[in-house]
């Protein structure tokens, strides 16, 4: 039952990641996918192995990693914005060969 929201969240994430041009929006989509996965962890842990807590801890772990990763990504995006004055992914072509 909890898997349906997580599936929808993942689908939205993929769709957003592919279609959005704005890097911030892509980052948000990425986070959506990550959170969908986190939910899956928790759900499978709760229903399949109620005695164990590995899934829960893995979720916490993934949330922590995601936070760090978001911080890094935001930092990169801000720096790119400072240089290129834009955040659209298909307009930043300076580093192509």
């Amino acid at each position, binding site marked *: 039952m909890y898997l349906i929201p997580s599936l929808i969240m993942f689908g939205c994430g*993929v769709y957003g*990641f*592919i*279609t959005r041009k704005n890097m911030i929006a*892509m980052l948000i989509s990425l986070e959506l996918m990550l959170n969908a996965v986190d939910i899956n962890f928790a759900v499978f842990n709760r229903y399949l192995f109620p005695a164990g807590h590995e899934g829960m801890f893995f979720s916490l772990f993934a949330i922590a990693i995601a936070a760090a990763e978001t911080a890094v990504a935001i930092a990169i995006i801000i720096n790119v914005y400072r240089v290129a004055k834009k955040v659209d*992914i*298909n307009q930043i072509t300076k580093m*192509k060969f």
Partner: protein
Amino acid sequence: MQILDSTILVLAIPLFMFLFLGLVGVKMPRKITGVIGVLGMAVTTILAYTIAFVYFFGEGPQKVDGVYQQLVPVDWTWLSFYADKLVVRLGVLLDPISAMMLVVISTVSFMVHLYSLGYMSDHDGNPEKGFQRYYADLALFTFSMLGLVVSTNIFQMFIFFEMVGVSSYLLIGFYYGLQPANHASKKAFIVTRLADLFFLIGILILSFYTKTFDFINIMGKNGGEVCNAFTSAQGLTFMGCSVTGWALTFIFIGGAGKSAMYPLHIWLPDAMEGPTPVSALIHAATMVVAGVFLVARLFPLYVLEQGAMDIICVVGAFTAFYAAAIACTQSDIKRALAFSTISQIAFMMTSLAVSSANGQLIGGHEAGLGYMASMFHLFTHAMFKALLFLCAGAIIHAVHSNENSKMHGLHKYMPITSIAFLIGCLAIAGIPPFAGFFSKDEILVACYEKGLGWGLWMSMVAGMTAFYMFRIYYLIFFWKKHEVHGEHAPKDQPWTMTVPLIVLALISCVAGFVPFGDLVTWNGQALETHMNWPIAGASVGIALVGIGLATVMYRKENPLPDKLATMFKGLWTASYRRFYMDELYQFITHKIIFQGISKPIAWFDRMIIDGFFNLMGNVTNSASFGIRKMQSGSVQGYVSYYIIGAMLLAAITGVVILCI
């Protein structure tokens, strides 16, 4: 006997000379290199003479009850495979023929070394390039030839067979700047190599059945007992002939290539592009008799295979006539001499082939006469043919041309050369008391014993020999007054070149009196020989007829030869063009082999094999070109491909699971 054990030195000195002159000689002045080469060869010659003398006349293990034994002073296992099942040895085998060959090779080689000091000193007035290289190659050749004759086994013989081929190649192509020399050396190498392929096949067949390479193991001491494996292999047949017959025929083809038997003779006339002393050493006296030596070495096997012997006999008799017919019309003196060499070697081959070894007395002569006669002729022929070639070299050196139209009337200018050449001609024509008379007489006797037809045929060729040799002689030294070209008239050459002529001329005078029948026979036992006066008289008579005819036609300038040439125009032209053998080969190689076989193979290689790999490359290339747009650098694009791929994979997995 100590001295016989030192035979290995005879080989070691030329080998050392080759390495020394080849590596260090270039740094030394030319004269010194030459002198060192000559001195080294002199030592070798003295040693070889000592060994031969001790072998033939000394006391010791080599002669037991008047029978010459085969000695093996050196025997060294070189390679050993499969728990000694396949053993290749290198060694030294001394028996009458190898001792005789040591003398022949070292004598001629020494004379040629000495002669070359004069001949090679300048080339049309300029210092000869590669003088040191020349001497190094000569030493290499001498080493390989000596190694060939003392081989203890057939494999060692094959190795040295190839080595003489290589050194011959190097020396024919000595003037590598000249195109004909290059072609000639290639031709010589390829033709002899092709023949050696058959030799190798023959060796493989023979040693497969006899399980050994060693001559003594195969044939027994002194050819006494041929090993059982051989006689039992004779029972096996392949395509109607016994396997040993095949093996021996293949081995003979190898020998025929080296000895320029028809139809593998084509390389020898062209080999005359090399320096003349080289022609004297390699293409007249030594290397070309390697084939005869090979057959002589395996003689105890050949006598058991009458089929192989018949082939040799027919090939030899035909070649003798064929080459003599060509020699009658050649205008290049070296080529005429080359055809004469082919003819004389064919004499030796025929003589070997008509010999039978079963010890019966035929017509008052012991069988095995042909073998003795062949070796005798080999010995005398080496001497007088070397003499003739060296004379030719002196003449060429004097007039700077090979064509006898540029010579004529040289007798007045070059008396010593003229007399030496005359002696050589008399010797080869078989006029007593010169060397050729005795050996050729024995050969003719052996042929008449085989059959009247063989004898008459060979007598006719002997007459032709006399005719063409004197034709050359008269055309060079008489015919008409010499027209002096350039500022200086031709004259006798410096002493380095005349001394060898005189020495060889003396040998040609006396060599016939060597009691060969006592010394060199197939089984080491002395052979009773008598002068067969009717045959000897007849052969002298026919030789005199040949000489007389030559005298009438060529002594003084007259229109008779031209008249005859126009009368028999077709025949004359055919003979002058060597009966179109070269054209035939040209046709076979170019039109049939190159066009018919090589071209399709080349096409297959280019189109099918190369094409396949080109196709693979091109397909990959164009496929990559087609999909290169997918690598856009846009992460979103990649992700969409990834998603599509993952979904497809999931779909397939799902379908598979459902189906299962």
